[in-house]
Structure formats: C-alpha cells, structure tokens
C-alpha cells in the first residue's frame, strides 16, 4: 500500500499540464483563444510561464523563414491556416543566381520559378523551402514558398488531384510496380478531371456561349483537348510497351513522357482558367503595372548574398499600401461576397493579397480562394516547424516502407498501445485483483495515455490553426485521465490493508471501469480529430520528437516510480514497445533523400505587390527585369550566417534524444526549481536539434525522405521538356497541334461518365464505386474489361443491387453513351454483351426473372433500332431463359472464372483411362445380397476411398456459386444452399460412421484393426486429393471419444500411429490451416478441398468487410458512400478457387458399394440421433474412466473444512463442481 503514495499525481511535477506538452502562449491578442484554454493556463501558471520563455527562446533560434514584410507581432490573428497544399503557384518569379548551392552537390538544386508557375509540392521544409516540381518544365528542386500561394480552384481541383494520383502512380512505377499502367484507368481520371473542369467553367461543348464568344478560350480549349489526346496516346504507348515487354529503359522514358504530358495538360488548364477568369467571367480588374515591382534581392542559396540585404527604404511602404487600398476596393467589388471592411482589414495586414487575388484568383468568389490566399505564409511562423511536411501519398505504397516516423503512424501506434493498456486496466477491475497489480496496470495505462496525448499535442502544435475540436478533444481526454487517476487513488486511500494483499471487489472497481471507459471514448475522439488535422495540414515526420516523447515520459515516470515500485517492471522496454520502431541505428535509416537544403538558408525576400498582368501578356515570364523595391527586412536582425547555429544531422542516439529540445523531459517532469537550467538546455540544444554538418555549413541532408525525382532524373526531364514547352509560346503552334487531335477526344470528353465515383486500391484495382460507375467499368469501350471484375460483378451483383436496377443501369449506360461512332457503338455492343452473358451463363431463375420484362423491352425496343442483329439474339435468349427452368443455359462450369480449356477437356474426356475398381465378385455378391452383413474391413481401403470420393465429388461439383454468397448455407430457413449443406452433412455423417464402426466393437484389438483400416482409407483419400473426407476421418479418429480408448490405442501399431500423426499435421488448424492451404495452392483438379475453410473464409470476408466505402469527400463535404467492391472481389476470388476444383474424378462408380455405404450412413444417422454425446457414452462404456487421481479429489474436502479467503472462493467453487460433475459423468 505504501507503494501507492508515490503515485500521487497531484504533485506539482505531475500536475495536469505536465503530461501534455505545454501550449503555446500567444502574445498577440487572439480572438480565437478559447476560454477553456485560459482556465487550463491558470491552473498551471508556473508551467505556462516556463513554456512561454521556452517558446520565445526557441523561436528566435530556429531561424524561421523571414516573414514577409510584417513583423510577427503584426501578423493577423485571424485563423491562419497551415494547410498543406499540394499545389502552389508562384506569384512572383524567382531566379537564383545559381541553381546549385555553394556546395557542388547538384541535388540541392533550387529551381527558378516564374510568375504564374504551378508547382506540385512534395514536401515543405520547416524553413519555408518547398521541394516541388514545376509543372511548366518538369524540373524539380527547392523553391521558396513565400513566393508562392496555394493554388486551388474548385473547377480545377479534380484535375489536380488526378495529376497527383498519376504522379504517385508513376513514382510507384519507377520502383517497379507497373501493373497499373497495363490498364488505362488512371488516364480516365485525367479525362474525367478535364471534363469536370470544362463543365465547371461552362466550356464543355464547342457550342457553349463562352467558347463561341471568346477566341482565346476557344483556342485554349482546343489546346487542352490536344494535350489530353496526346496524353492518352502516351498512355496507350506505355500500355503496348508493357504488354510487349519492352525494355525497361523505354518504359521509363515513356513514364517520363507521360508525366510531362500530364503536366503540360494541367498547365494548359491553369492558363485556361486564367483567361477564363479574366476574360470571360469576372469584371476586368483595372491593373496598373507596378513599375516598382521588386524582385528577390537575395538568391537564397547564395549565402554570401544573403547578408547583403540592402537597406530598405520604408517610404516605399506607404504608397504601396495606398495602392493596395485602392485595389482592395476594386477587388471587393469583383468578389462581392466578402464584406468590404473585413477585406480592407486583412488587406492592410497583407499588402500582397491584392495582387494575388487579382492574378490567381480574379474569379467570382469561390469558397476557397479567400482563406487560402492568406494562409501560406502567415501561418508559418506560428506553426511548430520541427520537420518537413509531406503531401500524403495517394497510393501510399513506397512511402509506407520508409516512413515509420510519420505523425499518422505515430498516432496510430500510440492509440493502439493505449487501448491495449486501458483494456487490461478495465479487465482488471471487472475481476478481483491485488493492489500491486492494480498499481502496475494503472501506471501502464497512464503512461500509454500520456504518450497518446503527447502525439496528439505534437499534431496540434504542428497545426497553426490550432484546431479547436482537437484541442477540445484533448482537453476532454486529459480530464478523463485525471478522473481515472483520481478514482484509482480514492480507491486505495479508502481501503487500507496491512499486507498489501488487499483485494478489490468488482463493485469497488466499478467507478474505475467507468472512468477508464470514458477515457477510451475520449481517446477515440481525440485520435479522430487528430487524423482530420493531419489530413488537412499534411503528414509530417516526428523526426526526433517522437522518440523524445516516449523517452521523456519514460524518464519522468521512471525517475518517479523507480524509487517506489518494488514491482518495478523493466519500464523503458515495456512502454517503448508499442511505439513503432523508431529507427534506433543510423544504419536502419532510409537512404538519404536526394535533395539537400540548408536549414539555415533564409527564404528570399518576397517581392512587393507583384507586377500586374496585362490581359494581352499571358506569357508566364512577364516581368523580365523588375525594379528592385524592398521592404523593411527583418533579415538584418538575424545573425550573420557564420554565427548561425550549425545544424547537425539528427543522430537518433538515446543520449542526444534526451538532449533535444523537443524531448521535453525537463519541461514536463523537471522539478520546479530547475526552471533556469531548463531554459539553458533548451537554448543550446536547439542548435543541435535536427541537423548535422554536411560538408559545408549551409547545406544539410534533409532528414526527411522526399518523394523526389531522383537527382539524375530532373535534369533530363527539364531538358526534354523544352520542346514541348515551346508549343505554349505561340498560339499558332498551339492551334496547329490542337486541330489535329481534338476531334476524337472531344467526343470522348463529352461522354457522360461516372469515373469519379470509383475508388481504386493500391494495386490499381477497383475497390469501390457507385453502381453506374461499376456498370460503366463493365462496359468500357477502350479495353476489354478485366475478367475478374466481370465475373465478380456477375456473381455478386445481387448482393449490392437488384436485377431490375442492374438492367436499368445497363440501359441507362446504353442511352447516355450516345450515338457517336467512336465511342457509342463499341459501348453499346458491350452493353449487349453484358446482357447476353447474364442470360446465358449467370441467370438465376429465382430472382432474375423480375428483370426479364425490362430486358425484353430493351431488346425489342432501343436495341433493335441501334443494333438489329443483337436485338434479335437477345430477345431469343430472353425467351429461352424462361423455358429453361433451373440454372444457366451454358453449364457454368465451362464459362466461369478460373476455368481454362484444360478443365473442360478433363470434363469431356472419355472414361477409358479410369482405373479398374478393386473389388472381387464375392464382395460384389455380398453387397448385392441385402441379408448378408458386410463390414468395412471386407473391402479394400483404396476402393472405399474411391467410392467415398465419388459420392462426395458429385455433391461438391454441384455446388453453385450462389450457394456460397451471403452466408447462405448457414441460414436454416432457406433452401438455396442445398449442395453446400448436403456436403457438410455428408462429412459429418462420415465422421460419425468412423466413430460408429470403432465404438460398436467390444474387443479393443478389433477396434484397433478398424482404426488401422480407417487410417489406410484416409491415406487413400489424401492420394485422391479428397481433403474433405480426409478431414472428416482424421477428426473422428482424433475425437475425444476415440482418442480416450487407451486400451485400444495400445493395440494400434506404431506404424499406423505414425501415419496418423502425419495426416494430422496436414489437417492442422494452426496458423489458419497453413499446411492445408499450402497444399491446395497449386493443386490440379480434380480435388475435393476441405470446404470448411472456404466457408469460414467467406463468412469472414462477409463479416469483416463493410458493405460500403466512402468516396473521398470533395470540398470538405462528407464523401458519398459507394459499393465496397473489394469485398465482393474477395468473395469472388474464394468462390473462384473453389470452382477451379469442381472437376469430376475419373473413377468408376460401384453402385452396390455406394448403396451399402449410404445405407450405413443412414443407419448411423438414425441410431442414437448420431450425436456426439451418445458416442461418448458408448466410449465410456467400452473403456470406463479410470478413477481420478487422489490429488484431484481431495481439495474440496480440505478447503471446505478450513476457512477460506474471498479469492479462494472461486477455486473452491470450481473444484466442487468439478468433482460433482465428473461423478455424474462417470456414472
């Protein structure tokens, strides 16, 4: 009990805020400050004060990107967003003096950007530099984010995300995963994106008013279609290349080409949008070309230049702001939704906003443009910039391997470990436990909870927006944890115990359980909110922080607990475990990313209000020589570079981890008196924090792996793109390209499509989609649909739709595809083919006839006008289907999945090759003579096995796929799964027959002989690949009623026993039937697998996978839920495996023997209701139970005679029932 006094969590260092990293104290008056935070701050004043100092210290140390022209204090307090933007757009050009930093390493390339360039961002370094790829040139490198703004517009969003997806696929493709490119699904995403884009801009058709009215838009539209068409061509080329197994080099070249074409397409779309926005839609904004447009004075890489930041005449600021105000008025007229005063308000803080709005977003106000535009930079200083932010990968494939330190992963791991501890905790209190155990569990739970909180804190800190929901969730969780700790303490203080052996009854634990449960609930909420935040701000790496967290907590806890716990478990290892392998050794680190960037490299000074575009000058490079205008720079206040702390590479050695400022050891757990030293340690460890010296002080390896184009890659792509880019330059060129290629594509583009309602998995297969989208996939014109997809659809569509809806959907597809020769005819033919296939091979007479009327109408109506011949055939089929009552027209066996020509040849092969039956005349006669008694010992094991196999195979082969769906066979009230159930019954009967034949004999020796015979039969079953019968026989021989017959087994030979053991390993249930599954993997039909495995698999696919999936939400809305096709694919795969074995054996049936066997089975079934207990009773009669050993019998007597403690009551009870029950049993 004394132990527990030390777990006093109310001690100052353990108080509330000690467990979570302290919050940032914002010095500027903030509207967003929530009242709750104030409360918490006041509750831990000392902590807060310390935090503040730490924060201000570290902020000055971390060399933040220079805030554009406004000091941090003046930053807007209103909701800055540090969202991670996948796309940025340069609002000012940036040409570093040299693209390579002073080191010779070419991977530290800084890309020059031009105004208007759109950049695909891969990661953002905390210092404000982003690793991005220029869509315009395909060049990749570092670029200053303060020259860019988020690029996002509703109409182009879908195209942009398609591009990101394509990029990710190509990245995966470069690491050898090319499967996805053998299909063209990914290109359809791009097409759908373009379609969506044109639709949104009301330029979809050539006839649309906008297109007719604007020459430039018309041209751009043609150009866009031309680009798209060329992209499609490349994709086709790639497809062909892959199919013809072309050289890897060629493949990679084509991949590059693909990406570049896609980039070009998107760049064009961006230009289109610009023109559209300026020409077509919005009120033209009067621009005055800003002669004083400034340019970045200091190429960021050049460290020498960095210091020569010229004095900035502050006088410039005045006029510029005046202008700003003017424009603000104009803009707010154009985008009228924003209240003017608010606009102006923000304008004065953000002089740049005007130009940005006019350049990139001179559009009617959309939901996104305004907040986004102000987000990028203003957010930076506030967010905790410990590490690089990454774009979340769409495919997530190659990334997941090397990034174990990502916030999302951390969060997940911490939550898991928390759940496991807390569940132990709860479980503990449902039962009576001792205090020491309770102590340990409580501690574990609290530690785990704190770890989770720390991760959440990390996420929260990272998010400059300081997500209120997350904070709230965290606060709730924290208070729940406190309650839990309090409850535990209360319990211990209430119940005093002398020897520390006090047992807590479940009743007293109730409070604890409630507290713990609410803790779990709060944690779940917390994790959900954190995940949302991560999604929004981009995933990031914890670098050392993650390690720091666990380390610190452990240190704190250990320091505290070590002295008081004699139960002390090896704490660090224990609690470390749940966290995913933080790379401990430098060797286990992922290979260093290709790009280098200096931690201390300051961002270039961002330009003043960017030069204004004239409508005519649409070329990206507009300002060739902007006049240098500078603003008050904060750079002068920075120490010269040489004095900057030397960055060092994070060495994840434990010692350093504990030193790093992020590992908040001292902050969290240090004694109050050490506050000073805390600050000191934070101050100097900052410098060593995440970087290491790398050759020269200015460039380090970014610790974070980036999804980089490999260094040798980027130069080539840039080069190769020159030609392509030139086509942009002149409209005439553009025009010529466009006119050639657009026609065909236009038709395709105008096609109504549901592609955006499909979800793909990492392998590029469709894993979900709405019904129209899936039907569309079923009837694509460009390629033969994937056979697995088609079979799955036919097999399972009744599970997610009705035959009537399916038919209607197909007819819709037939309608909306239009009359176009290019697309319409092939698609319509496919629609017909789908109907045909359904009627011919997949018709189910029990439910499908409902759709027959619709199909007939279609066949004789719409189809006749379009495809007369097809119409006739379909009508024929439809009438035929009504005549054939049951099943499909064509035997499903032949046409279904997994079937090849081989199986059908086996099926039709003559029986001439079948082996001769092993049976004598006299045996046959005996069988024929009903009066004579036959025994299984009379027959050859091989022949018995053969006949069993024939009977079983007959049932097995008649199993229809539909029987295997939706756990049909377990539903007792339907008659659907007849064959599956018949097969189960047969197996059970066989098992019972085995038991019966053994247990009906009085003599143990005779029983042994029967056992031997059955072992032989099962050996033969194995040879015949009849695993189902094998399983039944072995199970029966292995059952308790047979196995307990000691005297019998004594008579069984060692050889037989050894054989049996061998067979047992085959049917072993362990590791999910690993042995059996392995055997079945490449088995050639005919074969009767153990059907139970399939049934279990199917059950769990059904139960373990949801019926719907969520489409990724658009515009922050909740996604639409669509059919989880993945589940059905899995079902179909299992059914397909089973079907692949459905081939009859080439064996000669002996009807007499089969009759006899069936008679035996019937007899067994009739006698004793064939239940297990009756066999067991028989077994007991044959070889009665030996008297139980004395030890087992005595305890009840003894314990009842003595006084027993509460915890022994359980034991007493069970032993008592034991003896009584066993007496009954034995009687």
């Amino acid at each position, binding site marked *: 009990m004394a132990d527990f006094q030390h777990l006093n969590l109310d001690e100052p260092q353990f108080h509330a805020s000690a467990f979570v990293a302290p919050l940032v104290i914002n010095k500027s008056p903030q509207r967003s400050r929530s009242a709750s935070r104030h409360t918490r701050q006041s509750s831990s004043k000392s902590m807060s004060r310390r935090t503040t100092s730490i924060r201000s210290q570290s902020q000055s140390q971390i060399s933040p990107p220079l805030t554009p022209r406004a000091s941090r204090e003046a930053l807007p307090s209103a909701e800055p967003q540090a969202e991670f933007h996948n796309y940025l757009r340069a609002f000012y050009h940036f040409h570093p003096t040299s693209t390579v930093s002073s080191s010779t390493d070419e991977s530290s390339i800084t890309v020059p950007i031009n105004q208007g360039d759109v950049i695909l961002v891969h990661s953002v370094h905390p210092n404000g530099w982003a690793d991005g790829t220029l869509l315009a040139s395909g060049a990749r490198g570092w670029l200053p984010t303060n020259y860019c703004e988020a690029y996002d517009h509703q109409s182009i969003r879908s195209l942009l995300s398609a591009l990101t997806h394509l990029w990710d696929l190509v990245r995966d493709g470069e690491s050898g995963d090319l499967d996805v490119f053998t299909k063209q699904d990914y290109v359809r995403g791009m097409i759908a994106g373009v379609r969506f884009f044109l639709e949104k801009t009301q330029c979809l058709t050539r006839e649309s008013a906008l297109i007719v009215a604007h020459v430039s838009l018309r041209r751009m539209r043609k150009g866009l279609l031309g680009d798209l068409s060329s992209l499609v061509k490349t994709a086709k080329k790639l497809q062909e290349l892959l199919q013809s197994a072309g050289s890897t080099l060629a493949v990679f070249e084509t991949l590059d080409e693909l990406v570049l074409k896609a980039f070009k397409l998107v760049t064009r779309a961006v230009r289109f949008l610009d023109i559209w926005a300026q020409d077509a839609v919005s009120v033209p904004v009067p621009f005055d070309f800003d002669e004083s447009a400034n340019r970045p004075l200091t190429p960021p890489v050049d460290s020498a230049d960095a210091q020569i930041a010229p004095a900035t005449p502050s006088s410039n600021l005045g006029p510029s702001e005046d202008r700003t105000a003017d424009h603000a008025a104009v803009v707010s007229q154009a985008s009228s939704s924003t209240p003017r005063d608010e606009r102006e308000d923000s304008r004065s803080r953000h002089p740049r906003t005007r130009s940005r709005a006019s350049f990139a977003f001179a559009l009617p106000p959309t939901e996104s443009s305004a907040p986004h535009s102000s987000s990028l930079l203003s957010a930076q200083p506030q967010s905790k910039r410990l590490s690089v932010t990454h774009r979340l990968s769409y495919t997530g494939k190659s990334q997941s391997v090397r990034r174990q330190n990502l916030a999302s992963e951390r969060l997940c791991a911490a939550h*898991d470990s928390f*759940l*496991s*501890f807390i*569940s*132990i905790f709860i*479980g*503990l209190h*449902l*039962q009576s436990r*001792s205090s020491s155990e309770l102590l340990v569990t409580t501690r*574990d739970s609290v530690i785990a909870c704190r770890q989770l909180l720390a991760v959440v804190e990390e996420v929260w800190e990272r998010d400059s927006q300081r997500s209120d929901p997350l904070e709230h969730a965290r606060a709730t969780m924290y208070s729940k944890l406190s309650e839990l700790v309090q409850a535990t303490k209360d319990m211990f203080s209430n119940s005093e115990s002398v020897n520390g*052996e006090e*047992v807590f009854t479940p009743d007293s634990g109730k409070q604890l359980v409630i507290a713990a449960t609410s803790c779990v609930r709060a944690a779940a909420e917390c994790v959900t909110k954190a995940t949302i935040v991560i999604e929004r701000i981009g995933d990031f790496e914890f670098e050392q922080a993650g390690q720091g967290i666990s380390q610190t907590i452990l240190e704190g806890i250990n320091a505290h607990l070590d002295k008081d716990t004699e139960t002390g478990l090896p704490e660090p290892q224990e609690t470390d475990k749940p966290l995913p392998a933080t790379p401990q050794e430098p060797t286990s680190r992922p290979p260093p990313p290709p790009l280098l960037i200096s931690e201390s490299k300051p961002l270039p000074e961002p330009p003043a209000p960017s030069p204004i575009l004239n409508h005519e000058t649409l070329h990206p490079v507009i300002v060739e020589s902007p006049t240098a205008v500078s603003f008050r720079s904060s750079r002068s206040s920075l120490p010269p570079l040489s004095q900057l702390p030397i960055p060092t590479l994070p060495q994840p050695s434990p010692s350093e981890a504990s030193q790093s400022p992020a590992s908040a050891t001292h902050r969290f757990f240090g004694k109050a008196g050490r506050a000073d030293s805390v600050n000191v340690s934070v101050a100097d460890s900052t410098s060593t924090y995440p970087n290491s010296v790398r050759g020269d002080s200015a460039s380090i390896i970014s610790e974070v792996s980036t999804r980089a184009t490999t260094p040798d890659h980027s130069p080539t792509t840039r080069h190769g793109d020159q030609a392509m880019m030139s086509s942009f330059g002149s409209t005439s060129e553009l025009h010529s390209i466009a006119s050639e290629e657009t026609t065909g594509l236009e038709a395709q583009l105008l096609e109504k499509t549901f592609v955006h309602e499909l979800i793909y998995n990492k392998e590029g297969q469709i*894993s979900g989609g709405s019904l129209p989208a899936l039907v569309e996939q079923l009837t694509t014109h460009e390629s033969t649909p994937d056979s697995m997809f088609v079979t799955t659809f036919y097999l399972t569509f009744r599970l997610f739709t009705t035959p009537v809806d399916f038919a209607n959907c197909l007819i819709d597809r037939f309608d909306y595809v239009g009359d176009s020769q290019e697309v319409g005819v092939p698609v319509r033919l496919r629609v017909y083919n789908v109907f045909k296939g359904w009627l011919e091979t997949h018709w189910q007479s029990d439910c499908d006839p409902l759709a027959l009327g619709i199909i007939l109408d279609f066949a004789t109506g719409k189809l006749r006008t379009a495809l007369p011949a097809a119409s006739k055939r379909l009508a024929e089929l439809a009438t035929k289907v009504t005549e054939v009552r049951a099943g499909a027209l064509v035997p499903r066996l032949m046409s279904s999945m997994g079937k090849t020509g081989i199986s059908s040849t086996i099926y039709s092969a003559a029986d001439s090759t079948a082996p001769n039956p092993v049976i004598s005349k006299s045996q046959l006669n005996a069988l024929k003579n009903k009066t004579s008694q036959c025994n299984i010992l009379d027959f050859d094991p091989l022949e018995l096995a053969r006949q069993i196999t024939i009977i079983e195979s007959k049932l097995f082969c008649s199993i229809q796929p539909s029987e295997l769906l939706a756990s049909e066979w*377990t539903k*007792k009230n339907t008659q659907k799964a007849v064959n599956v159930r018949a097969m*189960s019954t047969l197996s*059970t009967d066989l098992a019972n027959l085995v038991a019966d034949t053994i247990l009906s004999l009085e003599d143990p020796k005779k029983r042994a002989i029967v056992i031997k015979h059955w072992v032989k039969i099962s050996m033969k079953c194995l040879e015949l690949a009849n695993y189902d019968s094998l*399983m*039944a026989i072995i*199970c029966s021989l*292995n*059952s*308790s009623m047979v196995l307990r017959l000691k005297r019998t087994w004594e008579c069984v030979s060692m050889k037989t026993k050894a054989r049996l053991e061998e067979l047992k390993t085959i049917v072993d*249930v362990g*590791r*999910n039937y*690993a042995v059996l599954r392995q055997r079945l993997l490449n088995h050639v039909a005919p074969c009767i697998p153990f059907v*139970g495995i399939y*049934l*279990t*698999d*199917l*059950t*769990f696919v059904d*139960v*373990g996978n949801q019926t719907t*999936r969520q489409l990724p939400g658009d515009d922050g809305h909740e996604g639409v839920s669509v059919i989880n096709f*993945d*589940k059905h694919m*899995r079902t179909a795969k299992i059914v397909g495996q089973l079907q692949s074995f459905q081939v009859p054996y080439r064996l000669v049936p002996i009807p007499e023997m089969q009759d006899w066997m069936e008679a035996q089975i019937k007899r067994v079934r009739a006698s004793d209701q064939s239940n*297990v*207990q009756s066999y*067991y009773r028989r077994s007991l009669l044959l070889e009665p139970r030996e008297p139980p050993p004395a*030890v087992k019998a*005595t*305890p009840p007597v003894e*314990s009842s005679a*003595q006084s027993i403690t509460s*915890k*022994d009551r*359980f034991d007493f*009870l*069970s*032993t008592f*029932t*034991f003896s009584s*029950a066993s007496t009954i*049993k034995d009687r």
Partner: protein
Amino acid sequence: MSQREYHIVVLGSGGVGKSCLTAQFVQNVWIESYDPTIEDSYRKAIMVDGRQVILEILDTAGTEQFSEELYMKTGQGFLLVFSITSMTSLHELAELRDQIIRIKDDMRVPIVLVGNKSDLEEDRAVSRARAFAVSQSWGGCPYYETSARRRANVDEVFTDLCRQIILKDMKDAQVRDYDHRDRRRNQGGRDSGGRSSGRRTRDRNSRGGKKSDRSCTIL
C-alpha cells in the same frame, strides 16, 4: 516474460454474431480491407498485465460440426458466445461446454461466457441475471455482454480470457511444482499448496521459498 502464444476458440450457435466478434477483435481498426485467407488473419498481439501475448483465434464460423472438436483440442481458452436476443442460443452452449470439458478433460479450462448483441437491448430475451447465473453455475466463469457491431467490450473479453489462461498456466506449473516437492518431502506433507490461487502463487514466486511455506499454513 517471454512472448506466449495462445489459441482461443470462439464457439456458439449460428447467428449469434460470433464471427463478427472475432472479426472485430482481430481486425485493426485502420484496416480498410480484411483478408481472412492469410496465415495471420486470426492472429493478434495484445498486452495482458504487461506482457505481450499472441492470440490465435479459432472460429468455426460456417463449418460443419465435426471440425469443432479439432478446434477445441487446439484451444487453450474458450469464448462461449450466445445472443442476448435468443434464449436457445444460451441453452445450446451448455452442450458445447460439456464437450469442451470432456475434450480437455479439465473442469477448470478457461472459459468466458459472452452475451453478444448488447446493442439490441429492446429485443433482449436473456436477462443479465439469468446469464450470470449460468456463468456462476459454470464454476464462476466471467460473464460479459458485448456488442460486436459497436465494438463494445470486444477486446475486454479476449483480454480477460487471456488472463485466465495465463493464470491457469501458472497454477498448473505450481501444481506440478508442488507435487514434485511433496513427493520429495514425505507422504504426510500437506498437498493443499497446489490448490492455492494464482495470486498467491505469483507472490510466493517473487518472495521465495520460506514464505511459501507460511502461506500454506494460512490456507
């Protein structure tokens, strides 16, 4: 303590949602797509009282009766699942329990009684008291009510069962230990030590031999 591996068998008649229970437990919450056909589809590592334990869940879902025994033989702990909406499903468990005890030849085999579908309170057909009485009559095995659909109490059930298995392991080891020691002393020695609870057993282990003698006298 080294990593242990236990087999847990989930039993119950059809329609009680036992496979749902298994799936919920085995599946990681973050997994989007569950594949039951691979080797570790039913394996999960959990922490029980500070030690990591690997559980392999054996669920006969969808298979015929005869293979059940195979599962029972392999299992070290048993979840007997019924639906609180069906009294029959509870009754059917009695026979299963008999079978387990018969096969394991041990009255004290770790069992947890689980009333599933606790979310369907309005359709409840088995009262808590009734189910609890059954669990008491079964040697006081723990009774839980779960909702596989809402993932309520799912992990708890498995954890509790796992704890029972561990305790039983220790007891058995203790029994063996004591039998051995008793034989070494003389026949007159008290043999009740072997019957002491797992709690005491563990403490004794940590304190050493002398105290263990004393605890025998206490008993």
